[in-house]
């Protein structure tokens, strides 16, 4: 039989069975799973050492908390400004190349020369402003303050240079922006190992300076003069994903890194006085905090200024719109760098300019390199709105200016090259052309070119220009509306149409292109009306009107009241007009609605909205009516010009104006006529009468309207807004030069005699006895009705429903909640509800849904509170709070339009702003160099003041010298750089500030100087000079501001010395310390000391030598002693504050600013040798050896002394003569033997004796021990025996006593 091959057993490797087996196997081995191990060996898992456990716990907690930063409210705006990337490094390290490469990487454009900041779009949500930082310490300091990210270029072939470390230190002081190192010149290493080594070395050094793990980039070789594409690409990626932690100073101050500068001075003024102060406007992204108009700013290198005007412009380098795209479209990659002459379109406040490239010869060379399609590209890539704007907003200026064109364009675009004086001149020439009459006209003209997106700053908006742009808006929107009305289909053709309009404008140009006056005039006259009067007259009238408007707007207010009825008619008519419009367009354009109906400016749109609504409700509301009128009059004041313009615009642009518009126009005309009348009256009545009881009126109006809907904002700020308008107009008037309205200070507006009291008295108290009045506040009390979600009873019910069910585990009784208990009931209810639902299903359903949602939410909250509580720490709470606040901040003004928003919170960071500044030194403009950064740093409320500032200061450990008190020092503190004279001090234990002559070597000390007030905790650094470069480290000291005050107490030690002239026991007379009795009297009781250390006190003045006094000491003085009193003398701090005005220096010398010199420098320069006091030189101390005489005791005394004390005859014995010496004994050999034997024997004997002694002693010890024992036993025995005896004796005694007692008792008994 053939043996069938049997299947081999296959052990299971997977499945439950295998698992079981494995487990068993492991258990057999004694290595089960973890749980088993825990069970098996519990000791291994217990706490071994409580102390160590506590320590590890502590440590982990420490590490955890160390990671925490103090949470701050995140105030970054939704659309953040571009990130400032500062590229810094020593010369010839490749800064510009890196910038160029980065720009090329992001924009595919090549910039040849980089001047000033370059803004590029780097991603969908990120823009970068890249700026190069030279080695001038001024630039380094300025840029470190505004940097978000620093690219620190390091020449690897050379290693670190001083500039790098200096910049790092500057950064550290002014908040630490993110720092990224970039190693260049790596291609110079031929040896790969060497390269590696260097990289590592540099990296570690960099880490110690920045922080361990700081990113260091390596740019290896160059290709065609550029870095490798991939490396740059990576660098760009790193930059565009980087996150930044907000820096304290930057987030608390608004600042602008200006990327464009323009001069606005009246050319006439410049002609008259070429050195006159200039008016300039600077452009840039606002960063940091909100900027308010009229606030104080500081321009590092120039000085302090007050912002005379701020306006925000459309973003020249906007973020690509939120699109669902992975990457940026090629077209959207934008670059904006007006100082470098890049940017294509330049938006001005009142105009848009297009850079056509070179109209100048010197630009030709650039043009070759600059891609020609850039302009086209930027044109295409801008938003459609800009398109519209461009079209509507007159590229016409461009065309119109063909005769002046080249200059025109040149001026605007050549600006960056302003350092050349030729250009500047052309600028001046051009300005003449435009500014011929006055600024305002220019504005007017220009405003025609304005964009509809373009918006004015608050003031302008409120005054004339609020309309300029916005009325145009109106016009456009109206045209749009017209189109809407005519048919939606036409709407698409709008762009086309605007283009047509533009052409029309061009066509019209000849009509008023010959002079701006004409243009102005034509716009000033209502629409079609031809010029009636001569130009001059018109002009003057305009001026008059404008000036009067200031006054009249108020008087109009009164007049308006008087003419209420007549006005009302107008209103009514207006209303009737507006209503249909509203009904037609209200869903679509609310803004249009308001602007149209009231014909008010967009700025007031929100207000007028309310008004309109109130108007719609009915005109009989007197209060609102009045208000409206007031507003109307306000508006009228500055509206006329707008209206006119709007009209003209309408007529030029919008041909299809329908009847509505005409109506509006008529209205406007009416208003104007009426206003002119008032103007006259205003002139006569005096400008200020109306103001006198303004507040009164306001209050009255307010009280009257307590129950109606008053527009409080207008009530509160209405007048103020108006005031501002007037101010701005005033400025214009000044420019006009004809009229100057002197308005009193705002303060005088207050009622003179009003009682200044915050109590709000009740004018017409309600009768609180009446039931209905009482019921009006019934619910204000806890006893009243509550809202549903807070009503305790309701909540209880709900809770009952939710948590009513529970089971008593002990008794096993199931409790049911009410709702559940009444299940059938509720069921029936539900049924009923369902029935109802049938009839009206939606609301019920929704209600139910809501209820359910509420329940769910509540449950979730409960759950959260139950389970999350363990983790929630104080830190988390704080963070949560901050987060909430940040959200609130963002949400609060979200829905408002920019104009109103700006009013409430100021210009928010991220906006592109134009800042006008007046009284700028002419050198700034004349010596303008775009290579140097222009920073506008906003100052806090009192940071513009000067006072005493106390610092904690430490000399930089790398600075070679120590600093001397009273030597001028240049500090960089806050935004500023300034020279001042610090005094160094140290605080003694008793809080005294003691003056130091020099700073300590390695220790902090205090410093105080007179300079700008800067908030406490601000860091600063000090340099000795900002001019030139020194091989040594330039930063002299760093520190922090501690305190600000108006007075300061630094004292220096002053010792007054005197000499004793008569000494009694412990008293002595001292002279020479004071000069009069009075002085002594002042110091009575003061502690004095002698040089030898004997302490004393001044007692009283003496009469004899003037200024001498009696003093007592703890010991007797010597005549040779010098006595001194230690006093403290207050030191005054020199009031020297000298801002470093490096930007005012001529080009090329900007790094050579030098201020006050130190005495040392002066001495060195003039070759004056310091004459030293010989006494204060240190000489080696030579001490003579002291010689003491012998003690001499008189003979008589010697006799009297006892022998012991008598001086002995201590004369030494003389040497014994030789003959008296004893002879030495010389032994025979036999004798020697004997003596040796004897000595040996005696030694043996001695030993024996010693041994015997020891033995004997031991025996004795033993014997004593035994004896002691015996004694003890004996003693014991004796004791026992004694005890026995005594006991017997005692018993016997007792017996005897007993018997005696018996006997006696017997005796008694017997007795």
């Amino acid at each position, binding site marked *: 039989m053939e043996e069938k091959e049997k299947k081999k057993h296959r052990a299971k490797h997977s499945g439950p069975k295998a698992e079981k087996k494995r487990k068993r196997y492991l258990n057999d081995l004694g290595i089960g799973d973890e749980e088993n191990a825990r069970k098996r060996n519990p000791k291994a898992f217990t706490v071994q050492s409580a102390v160590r456990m506590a320590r590890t716990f502590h440590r982990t907690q420490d590490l955890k908390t160390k990671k925490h930063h103090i949470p701050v409210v995140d105030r970054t705006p939704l659309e953040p400004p571009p990130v400032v990337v500062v590229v810094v490094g020593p010369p010839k390290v490749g800064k510009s190349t890196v910038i160029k490469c980065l720009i090329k990487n992001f924009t595919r454009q090549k910039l040849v020369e980089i001047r000033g900041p370059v803004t590029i779009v780097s991603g969908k949500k990120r823009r970068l402003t890249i700026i190069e930082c030279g080695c001038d310490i001024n630039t380094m300091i300025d840029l470190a303050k505004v940097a978000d990210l620093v690219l620190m270029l390091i020449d690897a072939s050379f290693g670190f240079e001083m500039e790098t470390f200096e910049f790092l230190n500057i950064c550290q002081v002014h908040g630490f922006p993110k720092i990224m190192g970039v190693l260049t010149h790596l291609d110079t290493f031929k040896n790969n190992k060497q390269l590696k080594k260097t990289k590592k070395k540099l990296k570690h050094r960099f880490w110690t300076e920045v922080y361990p793990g700081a990113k260091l980039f390596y740019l290896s070789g160059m290709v065609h003069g550029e870095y490798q594409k991939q490396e740059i690409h990576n660098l760009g990626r790193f930059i565009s994903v980087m996150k930044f932690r907000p820096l304290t100073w930057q987030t*608390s101050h608004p600042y602008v890194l200006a990327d464009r500068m323009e001069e606005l001075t009246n050319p006439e003024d410049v002609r008259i006085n070429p050195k006159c102060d200039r008016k300039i406007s600077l452009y840039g992204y606002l960063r940091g*905090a*909100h900027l*308010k108009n009229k*606030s104080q700013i500081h321009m590092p290198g120039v000085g302090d200024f007050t912002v005379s005007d701020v306006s925000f412009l459309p973003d020249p380098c906007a973020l690509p719109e939120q699109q669902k795209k992975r990457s940026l479209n090629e077209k959207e990659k934008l670059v904006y760098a007006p100082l470098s002459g890049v940017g294509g379109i330049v938006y001005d406040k009142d105009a848009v300019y297009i850079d056509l490239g070179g109209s100048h010869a010197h630009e030709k060379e650039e043009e070759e390199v600059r891609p020609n399609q850039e302009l086209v590209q930027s044109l295409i890539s801008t938003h459609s709105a800009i398109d519209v704007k461009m079209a509507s907003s007159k590229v016409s200026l461009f065309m119109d200016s063909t005769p002046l064109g080249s200059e025109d364009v040149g001026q605007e675009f050549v600006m960056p090259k302003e350092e050349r004086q030729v250009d500047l001149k052309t600028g001046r020439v051009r300005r003449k052309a435009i500014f011929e009459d006055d600024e305002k006209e220019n504005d007017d003209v220009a405003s025609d070119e304005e964009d509809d997106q373009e918006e004015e700053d608050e003031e302008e908006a409120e005054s004339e220009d609020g309309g300029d742009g916005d009325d145009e808006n109106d016009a456009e929107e109206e045209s749009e509306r017209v189109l809407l009305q005519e048919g939606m289909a036409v709407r698409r053709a709008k762009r086309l149409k605007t283009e047509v309009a533009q052409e029309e404008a061009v066509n019209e140009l000849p009509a008023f292109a010959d002079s701006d006056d004409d243009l102005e005039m034509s716009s000033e006259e209502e629409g079609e009306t031809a010029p009636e009067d001569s130009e001059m007259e018109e002009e003057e009238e305009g001026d008059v009107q404008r000036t009067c408007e200031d006054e009249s707007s108020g008087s109009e207010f009164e007049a308006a009241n008087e003419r209420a009825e007549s006005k009302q008619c107008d209103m009514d008519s207006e209303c009737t007009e507006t209503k249909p419009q509203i009904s037609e367009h209200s869903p679509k354009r609310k803004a249009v609605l308001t602007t149209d109906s009231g014909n008010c400016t967009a700025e007031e749109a929100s207000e007028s909205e309310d008004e309109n609504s109130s108007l719609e409700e009915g005109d009989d509301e007197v209060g609102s009516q009045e208000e409206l009128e007031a507003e109307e009059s306000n508006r009228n004041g500055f509206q006329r010009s707008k209206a006119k313009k709007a009209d003209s615009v309408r007529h030029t642009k919008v041909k299809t104006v329908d009847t509505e518009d005409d109506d509006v126009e008529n209205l406007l005309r009416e208003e104007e006529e009426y206003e002119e009348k008032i103007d006259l009256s205003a002139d006569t009545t005096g400008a200020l009468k109306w103001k006198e009881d303004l*507040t009164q009126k*306001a209050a009255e109006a*307010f009280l009257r309207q*307590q129950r109606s*809907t008053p527009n*409080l*904002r207008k*009530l*509160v*700020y209405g*007048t*103020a807004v108006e005031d501002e308008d007037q101010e701005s107009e005033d400025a214009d008037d000044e420019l006009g030069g004809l009229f100057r309205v002197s308005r009193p200070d*705002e*303060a*005088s507006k*207050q*009622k*003179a005699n*009003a*009682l*200044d*009291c*915050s*109590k*709000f008295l*009740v004018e017409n*108290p*309600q009768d*609180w006895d009446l039931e209905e009045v*009482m019921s*009006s*506040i*019934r*619910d*204000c009390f*806890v006893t*009243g*009705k509550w809202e549903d979600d807070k009503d305790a009873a309701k909540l209880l019910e709900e809770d009952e429903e939710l948590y009513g069910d529970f089971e008593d585990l002990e008794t096993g009784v199931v409790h049911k909640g009410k709702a559940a208990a009444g299940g059938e009931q509720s069921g029936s209810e539900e049924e009923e509800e369902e029935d109802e639902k049938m009839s009206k299903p939606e609301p019920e359903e929704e209600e139910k849904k809501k209820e359910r949602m509420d329940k769910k939410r509540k449950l979730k909250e409960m759950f959260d509170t139950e389970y999350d509580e363990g983790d929630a720490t104080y830190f988390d709470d704080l963070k949560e709070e901050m987060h909430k*606040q940040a959200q*609130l*901040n963002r949400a*609060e003004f979200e829905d408002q339009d920019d104009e109103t928003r700006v009013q*409430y919170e100021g210009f928010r960071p991220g906006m592109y702003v134009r800042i006008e500044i007046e009284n700028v030194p002419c050198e700034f403009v004349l010596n303008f160099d775009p290579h140097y950064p222009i920073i506008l740093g906003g100052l806090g*409320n*009192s940071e513009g*003041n000067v*006072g005493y500032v106390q610092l904690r200061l430490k000399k930089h450990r790398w600075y070679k010298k120590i600093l001397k008190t009273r030597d001028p020092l240049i500090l960089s503190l806050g935004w500023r750089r300034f020279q001042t004279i610090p005094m160094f001090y140290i605080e003694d234990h008793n809080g005294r500030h003691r003056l130091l002559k020099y700073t300590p070597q390695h220790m902090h000390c205090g410093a105080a100087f007179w300079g700008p*007030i800067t*908030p406490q*905790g601000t860091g600063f650094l000090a340099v000795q000079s900002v001019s030139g470069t020194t091989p040594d480290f330039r930063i002299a000291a760093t520190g922090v501001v*501690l*305190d*600000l*005050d*108006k007075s300061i107490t630094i004292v220096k030690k002053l010792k007054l010395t005197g000499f004793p002239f008569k000494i009694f026991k412990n008293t002595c007379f001292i002279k020479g310390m004071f000069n009069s009795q009075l002085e002594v009297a002042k110091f009575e009781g003061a502690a004095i000391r002698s040089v030898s250390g004997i302490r004393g006190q001044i007692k009283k003045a003496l009469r004899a030598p003037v200024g001498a006094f009696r003093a007592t000491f703890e010991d007797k003085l010597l005549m040779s002693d010098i006595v001194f009193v230690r006093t403290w003398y207050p030191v005054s701090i020199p009031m020297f504050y000298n801002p470093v005005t490096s930007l005012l220096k001529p080009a090329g010398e900007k790094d050579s600013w030098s201020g006050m010199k130190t005495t040392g420098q002066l001495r060195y320069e003039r070759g004056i040798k310091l004459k030293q006091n010989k006494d204060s030189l240190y000489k080696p101390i030579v001490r003579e050896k002291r010689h003491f005489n012998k003690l001499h005791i008189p003979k008589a005394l010697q006799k009297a002394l006892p022998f012991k004390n008598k001086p002995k005859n201590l004369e030494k014995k003389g040497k014994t003569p030789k003959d008296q010496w004893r002879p030495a004994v010389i032994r025979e050999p036999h004798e020697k033997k004997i003596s040796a034997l004897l000595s040996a024997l005696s030694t043996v004997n001695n030993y024996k004796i010693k041994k015997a002694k020891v033995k004997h002693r031991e025996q004795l010890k033993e014997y004593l021990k035994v004896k002691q024992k015996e004694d003890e036993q004996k003693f014991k025995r004796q004791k026992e025996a004694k005890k026995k005896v005594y006991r017997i004796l005692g018993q016997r005694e007792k017996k005897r006593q007993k018997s005696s007692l018996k006997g006696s008792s017997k005796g008694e008994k017997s007795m």
Partner: protein
Amino acid sequence: MYNFSGFDFLPQHLGLGNAQHLYNFEASFIRLIDKVTNGSRIEINQTGTTLYYQPGLLYGGSLEHDCSPSRGIGYYLESLLCLAPFMKHPLKIVLRGVTNDQVDPSVDVLKATALPLLKKFGIDGESLEIKINRRGMPPKGGGEILFSCPVRKVLQPVQFTDPGKIKRIRGTAYSVRVSPQMANRMVESARGILNKFLPDIYIYTDHMKGANSGKSPGFGMCLTAETINGTILSAELASNPQGQGAAVLPEELGQNCAKLLLEEVYRGGCVDSTNQSLALLLMTLGQRDVSKVLLGPLSPYTIEFLRHLRSFFQIMFKIETKTAEEEHMGGEKVLMTCVGIGFCNLSKTIR
């Protein structure tokens, strides 16, 4: 003269007021300001019509000041309340003068309302207190209070939009140099009115004797209503000063005061009408965050104050009127919103 009560003295501005006359209470006020500041320059011309004030740094410390009896201490205290948190050293000042009068908010009211308000802005601590040592009634005064306030570097933003319901009414009825029974009579009549709304009413009677009672006789009461959210509304009335006007019956005064409180409740808001300006100022001086507060109708003083805030700090408030959604919740409210200017205490020393 309109005194820029307080805020122009914040050390950044140069207040230039036009005065028609300089009353002695204003002179006293200026002296007080001089005391609490260091390095301020005050120039008043010969006729006392113009005042030039260049503010110094707020110094604080332990001070004493005799206020002019023509105005109540409240007049001085109000501005001190604005300034005290921004001193260099914590302020501890003894003010002497008229504690309660008919014109100014009395010390009792400020103690009951302003201090809790300050606490909302993060100014709290043990040392924030007003202590009335002696009461003084007009015309002669003789009262004495101790006001102490800690120092803060920055203020917290507040969101204070829900006043909540009134849970208790407290108050003080005081009488000096008149029969102690007066106070009880006032309490009785006030309770009569207020009990219709709320049972939890307790009005302390405060009868001062001897040296503590000042120099003139008088009586009055102040009432405060506290809500569950910590809002405190107040009302007060005082008797006519001795020798001026007719004598007032305490019952009548009590009733009127209670009605005033009801009026205040009707106005509502999260801040007492007296302290509106204080709240707004502290909001303005907060960090650069949004602060919100719900007020009752704005008083003319507050409106004026808002204008000043605008002219000094370029701060505009967003003002929204809110109608009470429910019927019986009193009059209309105003929701004031602003972004703080990011003020920080420049006087405080850091170590």
